[in-house]
């Protein structure tokens, strides 16, 4: 059972991966930016003090120690201290503070 149970999700995963692969290939061939074609975020970090997330979907949680941001590739959880949103537009979010960890939650 464990063998069967593990086979089914593996096939699913492979199918999904195929779709992504086509899109990825197209973006590579046409030289288009991946984050736009695949609708995934682009993260830019300077040291551990500032983080820019482009192409995000929304702010899910905002505390001074934790920020959760919803994106195309799941939720990004940023932990740290004295976190502030330095600026926020409909595409970008600038986060400032002492960032200790960034985690992708599927």
């Amino acid at each position, binding site marked *: 059972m464990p063998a069967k149970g593990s086979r089914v999700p593996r096939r699913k995963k492979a199918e999904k991966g195929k779709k992504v692969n086509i899109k990825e290939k197209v973006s590579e061939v046409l030289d288009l930016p991946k984050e736009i074609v695949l609708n995934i975020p682009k993260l830019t970090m300077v040291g551990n003090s500032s983080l820019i997330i482009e192409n995000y979907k929304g*702010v*899910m949680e*905002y*505390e001074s120690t934790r920020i959760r941001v919803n994106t195309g590739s799941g939720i990004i959880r940023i932990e740290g201290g004295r976190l*502030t*949103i*330095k*600026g*926020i*537009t409909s595409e970008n979010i600038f986060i400032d503070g002492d960032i200790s960890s960034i985690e992708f939650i599927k």
Partner: protein
Amino acid sequence: MLLLRLWNYIRGYVIIVVEGYFLEKFINICMHRQVFLWDVRKRNDCSMALKVSIKGFKLLRPIVRKTNCRVNIIKKVGFPFILNRYRRRKTFIAGAFIFVILFYLLTSFVWVVDVTGNKNLETRFILDTLAQIGVRPGVLKYAVDADRTANELMLKIKEIGWVGVVVKGTKVKVEVVERVQPPELVHKDVPCDIVAGKDGVVKSIVAKTGQEMVHEGETVTKGQVLISGTVKSKNEQLPPRLVHADGVVKARTWYEKECPVNETIYEKERTGREKEQYSLVLFMKEIGLFHGSIPFKDYEKVEIRKRVSLEEDLTLPFELVIYKYYENIVRERKIDVEEAKKTALDEAYKEVMKEIPAEAEIVKKDSNFKQKENGETVASVTLECIENIGIANEIGGQ
């Protein structure tokens, strides 16, 4: 980043505190409606401080109602708020406008005409001539054409060799170079004599054309013909030939000056008592401020002018004149005989040097002291020079 902050300052923004339980939702709706926020800072669990533009703040009201938040303005920052503060002060704005207009008007006139470079010509005369042309204090500066003024001044005053006119600020600067007057020469084709310009003893005479009339060592007086342009022909029957005489006649000349030796000198001294008078000059009209009579019998007057000017060249037509009167007292002082003699000698020497032409060569200096009949001692300086005394003089003319 600095540019962005400056831009935000110019546009104006408000710092607000949002209180409520769904702050994330508030942020997301703001983004959805294109209301941009910055410097979002969580204060505690249910309140945050953030900055939003004035335009954005006006759009916040429906969002606030939707998310059940409360909004308080902490601070209004930026240029529009400062402007708003002054909007009600009508007199202030009117004053600012009047100031600008008045300033513009006052600086579009000429208030000072400056003449420099003149040595023999009087400044007053040049200023008067300029006034005739139309350049004087009080005239519109746009009406002053620098090139035309320079040309007309050149035509009006013959003694000027070059004129530079610059209109700078409220000043018209006129720079003058005087023409060196050419000596009055007798034309080469006109027959003339060489006559003595002053008394002297002839040292050497060289005639290029014409006939020598005097010899070396001969004493000549002013006006005497030295080289004649009337040359006698060898043939007695023919009339004499008239030529343009030319030559150099060097002669010894003497210059003498006397100066009395004074053992008592009179010195003016300030007593320390002084009086000040003030005058205000507005648009070239002088207004005296509480001018009383001057209580001193013998005084010295000093004039101090203070002009209101922004730079060196942007003067305004307001002037404060301070007249200072210092009381003087004349004191008699006895000085040493030797010292008095030296002073007198120096004075005499200075006097005599004024008379000697620049090209003359001084060969001998003599000084002595003479006792006059009335008992006065006189310092006398005699200088012996060698100079060209010949002057061309047209035959028949004077």
